[in-house]
């Protein structure tokens, strides 16, 4: 009787141990948990740097920063959206890449919650990281097929799918449309 009981206890601990191993292994396969333990270096920008990202990212190409030229950004999956904006008339076509695709490339820490976006004119705004996963927020390089220049809201413009989501037609989202974007700090 006693022997059987002991055996029962033993097998339970064995199963527990196996489960624990599985959990650990599965954990290692999730990229977001990988906070810089296996840094993967990004390509160095060849052309003019238009965007710098730092903060809770795991892949860099200059010290703790990741710098991008236009070609590097356009190498990400292209995305298009049509929307009106508060500073222009009519529906505009925006081409660029999804912000979350950029973040995917950078390997964001799971502790990251906010993004501080700053512009060429030093305009700084805090954006909740969740925005980029909840909506298809674009890092636009083109408006109506024309490359955005610094003299006209370029080189990058954070564009929300304003027309397709009623919730985004709100002044509290309008200020997150940073244009002349130059820097992102993930924290």
């Amino acid at each position, binding site marked *: 009787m006693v022997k059987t009981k002991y055996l029962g206890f033993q097998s339970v601990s064995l199963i527990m141990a196996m489960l624990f191993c599985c959990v650990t292994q599965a954990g290692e396969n999730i990229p977001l948990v990988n906070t810089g333990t296996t840094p993967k270096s990004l390509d160095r920008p060849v052309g003019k740097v238009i965007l710098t990202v730092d903060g809770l990212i795991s892949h860099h190409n200059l010290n703790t920063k990741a710098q991008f030229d236009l070609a590097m950004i356009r190498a990400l999956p292209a995305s298009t959206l049509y929307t009106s904006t*508060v*500073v*222009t*008339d*009519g529906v505009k076509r925006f081409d660029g890449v999804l912000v979350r695709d950029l973040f995917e490339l950078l390997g964001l820490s799971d502790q990251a919650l906010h993004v501080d976006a700053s512009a*060429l*004119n030093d*305009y700084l705004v805090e954006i909740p990281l969740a925005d980029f996963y909840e909506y298809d927020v674009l890092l636009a390089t083109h408006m109506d097929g024309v490359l955005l220049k*610094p*003299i*006209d*809201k370029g080189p990058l413009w954070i564009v929300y799918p304003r027309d397709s989501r009623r919730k985004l*037609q*709100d*002044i509290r989202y*309008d200020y997150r449309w940073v244009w*002349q974007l130059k820097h992102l700090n993930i924290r």
Partner: protein
Amino acid sequence: MTRTKKLLIRYILPLITIILLLALLAVALFRLSVIQREMRYNSNANMVWVVYYTHLESLRLSDVIQKKALNPDANVDLLFRYQMLLSRLNLLHDGPQSRFFDEVGLLAELNTQSVMLRQLEPLLGASPLNQAQLKDLQHALDEFSAFMLKASGRAMTAQWEELGAGVDMNRNAVLAIIVIIIAILFCSLFISWQLLIALKRSRENERVKQQQLELQKQLEHERKVSELYRSFGGMVSHQFRTPLAIIDASMQRLIRAAERMTPAQVVDRAVKVKAATERLTHLIESILKADRLLEQVDMQLQRFSLADLVRQVIDEQAFLSVNRQVSFSAQSGKDLQALCDPVLVSEIIGNFLSNADKYSSADTAIAVYIYQEDRWVCCQVQDQGRGISKADLPHIFQRYFRAGSVADVAGTGIGLYVAAELAALQRGKVTVRSDENSGSIFTLCLPHHFNK
């Protein structure tokens, strides 16, 4: 109140109120939806912001120009700052911003200023800048700065005006909605009041109807009582008159001719008077007996064979004529047990038999038959007598009722009434079928003992 006035107050006025209520509700909802839409509308509140940033860029450019003037080797990016300013200028020329400048009457000046600023590019490319160039640049930027101050002032006022107008509109709308709600409240109160009145009126009508019903019942009762008295009076006048006439005639004879009469004749008169008196006593007895019987019934329902009970009553024969033939038969193969009180059954069957005997000639037979039908056990008594007319048949079980055809036979009209009452007491029933001149069939039906 005239009919038209009544119609107006009871139906048209509440109807109008309800329509008004619905209309007011619709208006209130419309006003609310307008407010809701206005709340979603983003006004050009960011115009102040846009102007501020443009002004700031011009000041920053001015700043680096001054630094450059003081120190030609200063590490400042003049062209970058100039481009930033141009990007802001471009923004001012975009749709919403351009419309705002138009609205506040500054579009022409904006265009002039833009042309002037764009013409500065060659100057900024020059290096080093001489005093005259610096002065030109500074002058242009000062002018633009003054323009921006003016624009920001206008933007500010426009924004505040718009805000104020919005607040005014909302306040008016809210006030209108409050008024509408008060009106709705009054309409609702009026409708509720009308409803209460209608309710009260309907209750009143109900009460009046109830009273009328009650009165009708009382009237019916009174009518029955009066009919009862009439029947009683009729019966008494018929039944009592004959014996009284006999007594009266005999007495008259005795008074007038007593001396000439023989003792035997006197005795003969006295016997006649005695018989008449006995008949009267008997009548009174039977009337009283019926009441006593109904008032003091001590009923006990038990299982009895109706055939046995009836045979016993026939055997007693006390009330039958001497030579009367009575045939008795019972349905074979049936359970003829009924739930009844034997004393009451004897009374009913006795009444049927005595009636049959009274109203048919002595040489005809009376047939008694016991049978079962559905949930009843019945006893029918059939005679070959004079029968009952169609007109009298429906009244035959009424108290003191006597058929027209039996005026020559003494009777109180109580027997059949009592029979019907006693049958009902036992949850049974009495029925009659009759043809004038060919006889009557009286039937007593009692519940079968299975019905217990």
